[in-house]
């Protein structure tokens, strides 16, 4: 075991290999507040990568409803059972990670889902946290009765548990972009990675008898294009770009700005210790206690910053740039009510207004003597 620095935990932690951060790390931001669980991302991923025989059950991308949805069933409940409640002191995780809590004989503290766990991808969909009584009127945040959507892909972790668990080093993290891949030539189908991944995003191909996972659409990323799940998102909740190393902050980078400057985007179950690279803007209507369990101790600050977005032109401008271009946006700028995204060379990719011009019509249409259903 080596001591490696995990910035999400605020401390060094134990990992089977020395830290070797990639030259740059692909990362995602998902704004859960905008997700409507239409599953367009799921279908885009499925039809691109997992339509083969043996991949029937695989959803490298899925959208589940919290609190009662999960794929595979109970993945997060099992993780929390294994690790116990998260412990944070002054922004530092004091609990044990999946590596530090590994029992004797194991590299990672994990569990192996059965076919039954994988059999209900839409379990709990749209189920609220409790019954809604007749006459209930929800007029405050967070809501007393709630559900929210959680879109999930492989986190392409800085310290992948799948990679740590493989006894034959058949999983590798690409030095050029941090994408985590299963070597399809070397894998012997032991499924150690499936058991190890706290997010359960490595899956066993029942036909090829090897493990497979989200490949971050690397053929697209290599051409400067965002992955399928990002470019297909009709709610424009996603962006994929690169995150700087922990000691560096680039305020022009969309990922750095949201994660490190405004700090509105947070890792999912950071206490697991893998330093996941998908960052979530938490759902502002869900109870804070639940959100702290999911996203760690910085939830309150993130939600409050997000709620002030109307007065924050930079944040608003960047959120307006989500889903506005297929290309990977390496930097952005907001000026005079216009947000502009740039590629790696500084060439403009797209410009969007912070506020769309709107015209509000009268509620009553005197010409046709009728009320209008849509007045904007």
């Amino acid at each position, binding site marked *: 075991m080596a001591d490696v620095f995990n910035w999400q935990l605020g401390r060094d932690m134990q990992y089977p290999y020395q830290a070797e951060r990639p030259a740059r790390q692909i990362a995602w931001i998902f704004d859960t507040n905008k997700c409507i669980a239409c599953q367009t991302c799921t279908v885009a991923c499925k039809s691109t990568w997992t339509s*083969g025989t043996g991949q029937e059950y695989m959803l490298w991308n899925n959208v589940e409803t919290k609190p009662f949805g999960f794929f595979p069933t109970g993945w997060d409940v099992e993780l929390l059972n294994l690790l116990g409640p998260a412990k944070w002191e002054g922004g530092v995780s004091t609990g044990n990670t999946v590596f530090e809590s590994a029992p004797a*004989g194991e*590299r990672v503290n994990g569990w192996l889902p059965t076919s039954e766990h994988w059999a209900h991808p839409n379990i709990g969909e749209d189920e609220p946290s409790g019954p809604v009584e007749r006459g209930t009127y929800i007029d405050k945040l967070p809501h007393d009765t709630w559900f929210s959507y959680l879109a999930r892909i492989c986190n392409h972790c800085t310290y992948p548990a799948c990679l740590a668990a493989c006894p034959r080093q058949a999983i590798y993290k690409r030095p050029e972009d941090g994408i985590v891949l299963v070597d399809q030539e070397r894998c012997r189908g*032991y499924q150690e990675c499936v058991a190890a991944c706290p997010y359960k995003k490595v899956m066993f191909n029942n*036909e090829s*008898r090897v493990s497979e996972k989200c490949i971050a659409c690397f053929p697209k990323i290599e051409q400067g294009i965002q992955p399928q799940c990002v470019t297909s998102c009709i709610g424009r909740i996603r962006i994929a770009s690169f995150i700087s190393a922990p000691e560096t902050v680039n305020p022009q980078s969309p990922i750095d700005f949201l994660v490190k400057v405004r700090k509105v985007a947070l890792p999912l179950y950071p206490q697991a210790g893998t330093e996941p690279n998908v960052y979530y803007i938490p759902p502002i209507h869900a109870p804070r206690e639940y959100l702290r369990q999911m996203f760690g101790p910085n939830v309150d600050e993130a939600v409050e910053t997000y709620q002030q977005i109307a007065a924050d032109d930079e944040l608003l401008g960047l959120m307006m740039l989500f889903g506005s271009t297929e290309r990977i946006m390496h930097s952005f700028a907001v000026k005079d009510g216009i947000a502009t995204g740039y590629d790696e060379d500084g060439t403009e990719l797209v410009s969007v207004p912070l506020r769309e011009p709107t015209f509000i019509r009268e509620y009553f249409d005197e010409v046709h003597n009728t009320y209008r259903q849509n007045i904007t």
Partner: protein
Amino acid sequence: MTSEHEQTPDAPQAVSRRSFLTKAAGAAAVGTTLAVGIGLRELTRPEPPTHLVAHRAGTIPLDPEDRAWTRLAKWPVPMLLQNLATPFAPELVVPEISVRALHNGDQIAFHIEWEDAGEDAIDAMARFRDAVAVQLPVDPAANAAVTMGATNQPVHIMQWRAAWQADVDLGRRGVKDAFPNMYHDAPPEALMGEEAARQFYPAVVAGNPMARRDRTSPVDDLIAVGFGSLTTHEEQTANGRGVFTGKGWRVVIITPLQPGADKTRLSPGITTSIAFAVWNGGAGNRGARKQWANWSPLEIET
């Protein structure tokens, strides 16, 4: 008399036979006819061998139930839980295997049997297959590390898997065999034909032996230089056959004495080392989660 220890002119059991004659004579002097009858059954059981001898035979049957195998004395090998390298299994589930060996000057074969309450021959999500492996030092005169070899100490491993046996016996097993009631509305094969659909199976295109669809042998030749380094040999020469008896497995692994470069080359008259590993898929055994045995001598009869 039981056929298990029946003698034939070719049978490589001269020592045991002499022992039988001596002891039978003694028993006959003191016992009743009935007692002698019972005693014979006991006394004809050959002495447990002190090490594994590959006896010379005319032909080597691939069928593990063949009498040429079952009449041979079994060499018991106590198995240990592999717990040097992580991950390892929580408990020993195959405490012993029994081994027999034959050679005919061209080929050498190992007959391995062990008890297993359930047949695990499906390779699918969270389901693992029974398996057994034989390990030989690539240089038969060298002391290779038992830990699947080491740098500059390569070992030649021949692994039999129950799932591969099913592939050979029944045709390539797939998702339909693991999940008979599954439904796939438009598999790529149906839309574009087998050849074009290959692109949907990266492991197949990459040549991964796990994904092989044209398997003719349930045994793979592998090379290793330490834990985690196991690599399928480019030239496959081993064969075998495994049968589940209802109480356990009987498996034959057969290989040419001279199997080619980078594999163990043996010849009659030499003594080398042999080691074993066995997996119970139903107990979650796979990869490093296995039972193994240390090196033992393997004598190849002249």
